[in-house]
């Protein structure tokens, strides 16, 4: 067994290494250099006789132009200083920052004229002089001045955001869906329903919670590996372990009886004719010298029992566990109900 484990892990490590190597080799072109804004704006020796002129943001960027292509300089601008043969320097022009939130509509002229901004670009676009930061400001920067409370409440993202890009927009600088989020998104949705609805529709909830569909969220979005999906990887092997570790988690979406509906279909249920008993010998104390363990397991996770034994009045549990039966009183200490003993369910045993 140990040898097989070692071999399996080795194959996994080798597999990962091969895949990564192939992947990196296949797409291993040199990363496009980031345009050295800081060098041009701050570090360049300029303004001296015979030297280049000092640059400002406006030297290269015509931000008041409406179309995006006019906001970025063309190659002719660079060739005023750089020779055409300086391909490395000129290739930096290709460093167009990715629009992770799509195109943003902003009136640059209006903003630059504001007293608090005074024509300065860097307070918003701080990434041009800071390594590791995007040259485009995060949305949290906008919200330092614009509260947009009414638009926030009404989930109005347009016209600042291009409507066509919104479906693919993820908040980066606020509303992070981190490790804790998936555990309690239901509770958060209760208190912040309108906030969730800014981006999500009810159909988005159904893409995970609708258990009638065969395609799980993982299959529908296989490329979204950063999403905290439940049924990742080899879930079919570990699903029994996961269910046992957190007995109520499955019940969020699945009714207990759906377990057996699938097990019968796949031929791994004791409810299928000819199937083997999944319980160990002596499970109900019917083997000489054995100690009944089914009661302990049932008290700990009755949902697991219900996944096969939930059969209403035909439940085999109440053959023994009923008034005067061999199994005695099924109600554990502290059990109570506000229902009348005449309720149909009670009459299974008490009728």
């Amino acid at each position: 067994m140990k040898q097989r484990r070692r071999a399996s892990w080795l194959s996994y490590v080798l597999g990962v290494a091969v895949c990564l190597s192939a992947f990196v080799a296949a797409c291993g072109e040199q990363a496009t250099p980031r345009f050295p804004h800081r060098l041009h704006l701050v570090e360049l020796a300029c303004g001296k006789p015979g030297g280049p002129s000092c640059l400002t943001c406006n030297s290269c960027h015509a931000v008041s132009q409406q179309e995006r292509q006019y906001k970025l300089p063309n190659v002719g601008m660079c060739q005023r200083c750089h020779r055409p043969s300086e391909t490395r320097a000129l290739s930096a022009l290709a460093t167009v920052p990715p629009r992770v939130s799509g195109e943003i509509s902003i009136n640059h002229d209006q903003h630059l004229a504001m007293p608090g901004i005074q024509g300065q670009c860097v307070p918003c676009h701080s990434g041009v002089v800071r390594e590791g930061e995007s040259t485009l400001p995060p949305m949290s920067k906008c919200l330092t001045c614009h509260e947009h409370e009414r638009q926030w409440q009404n989930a109005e993202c347009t016209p600042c955001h291009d409507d066509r890009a919104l479906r693919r927009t993820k908040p980066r600088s606020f509303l992070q869906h981190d490790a804790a989020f998936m555990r309690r998104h239901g509770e958060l949705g209760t208190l912040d329903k309108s906030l969730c609805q800014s981006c999500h529709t009810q159909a988005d909830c159904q893409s995970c919670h609708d258990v009638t569909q065969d395609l799980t969220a993982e299959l529908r979005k296989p490329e979204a590996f950063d999403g905290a999906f439940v049924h990742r990887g080899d879930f079919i092997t570990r699903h029994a372990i996961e269910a046992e570790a957190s007995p109520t988690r499955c019940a969020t979406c699945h009714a207990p009886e759906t377990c057996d509906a699938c097990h019968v279909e796949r031929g791994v249920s004791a409810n299928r004719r000819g199937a083997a008993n999944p319980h160990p010998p002596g499970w109900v104390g019917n083997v000489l010298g054995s100690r009944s363990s089914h009661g302990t397991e049932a008290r700990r996770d009755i949902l697991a029992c219900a996944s096969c034994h939930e059969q209403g009045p035909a439940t085999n549990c109440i053959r023994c566990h009923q008034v005067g039966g061999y199994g005695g009183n099924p109600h554990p200490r502290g059990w109570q109900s506000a229902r009348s003993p005449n309720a149909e369910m009670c009459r299974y045993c008490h009728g």
Partner: protein
Amino acid sequence: MRAARLSGGAAALTFLSVSITAAQPLPVKAPSVQQDRFDLSARSETYVALFRRALQPGPAGSLVDTSTALPLSQYVFLGAKDLDTAWRKNSVDLELAAWARVWPISNVAEQPLDGDVQTAFVNYRHDSMLARFGRQQFVGGAARFARFDGVLLGAELGAGFSAQAYAGLTVLPRWNARPGYHHLGSDADSLLRDAQAFQQPQRGGYWLGGGRLSYSSHAFSASGSFHEQREHGDLAHRNLGLDGRANVSSALLFSGSAVLDADSGRLADSRLWADVTPFEALGLSLEYVHTHPALWLSRQSVLSVFSTDRFDELGGTASVRALGPVSLEGASFLTLYDDNRPGGRVEGTVRLRADARTLLRLTYVRLLAPSNGYHSLRSSLSRALFGRTSASLEAYAYLYDHAVLGYATSSVYSGTLSYAPTAALSVLWGASLSRSPYAALDAQTLLRVAYEFGYSNRGVFR
């Protein structure tokens, strides 16, 4: 009922195709004063999967007869927001989502043609009032997650208070539609003494209703809720819910929720957590959960009277984003059952944003359940390749504490390649290989074509 589902899905498909065809060439222009300002969105996803399967595995994963499957699934979504009525501007929203699936070959277990309407509702707003009709869901609080065909009414009461009430027929899960499958077990089940003892599900007996009263301010939010659900006309769930949150400061947030089973007077589920953000780059969260599994069963379940045991879970998560392109996430939870057998989960993730186009992620998980557990290692890589093409690779490895069907390990490898010729259209091809206790070698492939359409005539500014 199935016919109704399918007709709904077909109608959605037709409506979607018409709306896409009609709306695509519309230019974005600034609206005039009288013009209806609205948003339209539509989405279509088509999936074609190809795999071989064995519905009844042999002992210990031994080879058995397999069959080829080629299911084709279609999802559609259509949404409209802020439509005008003759008497009110921006008062109507619509949402429709549906899926359909066919099995052209090898249909052993599933219906050859299947489908369902996921959501289909009209939302009407009038000042501070709201009414929603159709197939919808109500989430959180005592309801947890309720899907129904019915009506929801809501009102903003002022001073931060709001109220909602809903009622309708429960959207039944699929078990009632399986031929020869009444509740659990089939007619042929030898455990059944009397198959006639099962009641045939009648939809009229499956209904639900409830309400919620909420208060919200910047520093404090709270809501109380009630939910009742009926099966066969008898009580299935009667819950009371309480949710609250207090913003102590920008760096400290306390929240909690509780669901009380009103039938037994017991706390079915409760959670308390605190989110601490001492620095912008560091997020901490502490959480305590208390749960009674038996109280999640329907009150019509005989088994709901067999147990009062509970389990408690205590743990927390942490995320660090101060290491340049590297970010870290960790989680650790300890679970204690009534019989004192401990369980737990530890998880750690490293994300490396190598450059603007490459993301590498490595996750280790250790899970301990009472009778088994596992270690898992997951490595993922995604990269924007060239143009509008991107790819991802993933590998999973599992090492089980106790062998499952004789196998102590399993592994899965998967990859995707996607191409988006336009902003609205994308094509993805995915494939996976796995080795598990259930298959010596499992190979699957999937093709997804997605079309996404959005239109707004709210205007733009520069």
